[in-house]
């Protein structure tokens, strides 16, 4: 693999659809299920995760020649934990309400397999710029997935979107969608939908 490979659009878009961390690779599901009861929470979680992904990717990539293999996992975890702590404090500074809504799940970004996975599989093998672009793509893909859930859950479960009421007053909210079972059901629904779309695409491709 040549190190000087150009940054292509694909480096970025990879994480959005084809290797979407949630819908395709089924990684980092804990926050996907836990904090998506409102779109705002989803967005904040997505941004925080993207921040950690990009920063840790950059740093890991920068230090990739310095860190010996034996301690690489430990080093990555420390680096990730550092950025997560930073994200944690930043969110506290931005909005305490948001911080309370996300709860421990901000700190749990540390054990989000996407980040360690990216550090191990991508950032440690590619240049800083590529790592950043790829991390951003993955983060966006993750945010997209979170929003997919968050929007559905908030609109159906509370009749609002980003806290603004979007449904008519008479609308009966389906509170199951903001409850834990709803999270599982909505994610399963999205998975089935995407599987179906892929199936259709494949069939279409074959027929053409």
């Amino acid at each position, binding site marked *: 693999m040549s190190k000087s490979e150009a940054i292509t659009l694909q480096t970025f878009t990879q994480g959005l659809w084809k290797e979407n961390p949630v819908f395709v690779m089924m990684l980092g599901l804990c926050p996907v299920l836990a904090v998506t009861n409102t779109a705002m929470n989803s967005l904040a979680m997505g941004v925080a995760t993207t921040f950690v992904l990009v920063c840790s990717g950059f740093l890991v990539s920068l230090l990739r020649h310095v860190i010996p293999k034996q301690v690489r996992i430990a080093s990555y975890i420390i680096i990730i934990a550092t950025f997560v702590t930073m994200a944690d404090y930043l969110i506290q500074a931005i909005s305490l309400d948001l911080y309370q809504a996300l709860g421990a799940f901000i700190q749990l970004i540390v054990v989000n397999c996407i980040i360690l996975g990216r550090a191990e599989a991508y950032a440690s093998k590619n240049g800083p710029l590529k790592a950043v672009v790829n991390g951003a793509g993955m983060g966006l893909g993750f945010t997209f997935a979170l929003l997919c859930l968050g929007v559905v859950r908030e609109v159906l479960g509370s009749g609002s979107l980003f806290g603004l009421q979007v449904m008519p007053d008479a609308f009966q*909210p389906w509170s199951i969608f903001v409850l834990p079972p709803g999270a599982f059901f909505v994610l399963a629904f999205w998975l089935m939908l995407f599987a179906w779309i892929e199936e259709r695409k494949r069939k279409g491709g074959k027929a053409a």
Partner: protein
Amino acid sequence: MSDADAMEIPPQPSALRLIATLGGIAVMSGLLVVSTVQLTAPRIAENRRVALERAVFSVLPGAVRRESYRVDETGVVQTEANANLYAGYDESGALIGYALEGAARGYQDVVRLLYGFDPETETVIGMTVLQSTETPGLGDKIIHDEAFHENFRLLDVSRPVEVVKAGEKTEPWQIDGISGATVSSQAVGEAIRRGAEQREAVLTFHRADRADPIDPTDRTEEGGTQ
């Protein structure tokens, strides 16, 4: 994957190098974290203060200034850290009441709330839910339901509070429950009931405070709530 990688490495770097690398990273991360903490600390403190005051003032109508105390078995002490009792004063500096925390097991999880307590009349004068995960649309009415909150505008707590069914409140120490959300309403009542001991301590403190002329703060006698 890591197993295979580990096996491929013939030259073993020295332990010193490993430790040095880890140490270096640790130092770097320490720097990053500390600087972030330093940078955000004032904002966070400010956020906390605003949130706290918002809650305290909402349960003590008319209050604009607060003082923090801690109440426990040993009594009441003035403190900023670990505070769980707040005295609220209006613009003229008159004491409006005390804000106390309460908690009880709700339907899904613990319900934590803050309520305003007027020591002179021994009544609750306001309540806000700090934390709850009650059922949306049903139990979470304890947060916003106007009719329910009406109960806490003036609730006699000199005797144990009772939660009765919606619309059946006849006595000043009774709370009109939310229909269909009995457990959640009960939890709020329970949280307030449990605070009796705390309130006792607060009352003792309040009376002593009143009687004590060497109070440093500029509080005038005529500022009572009679």
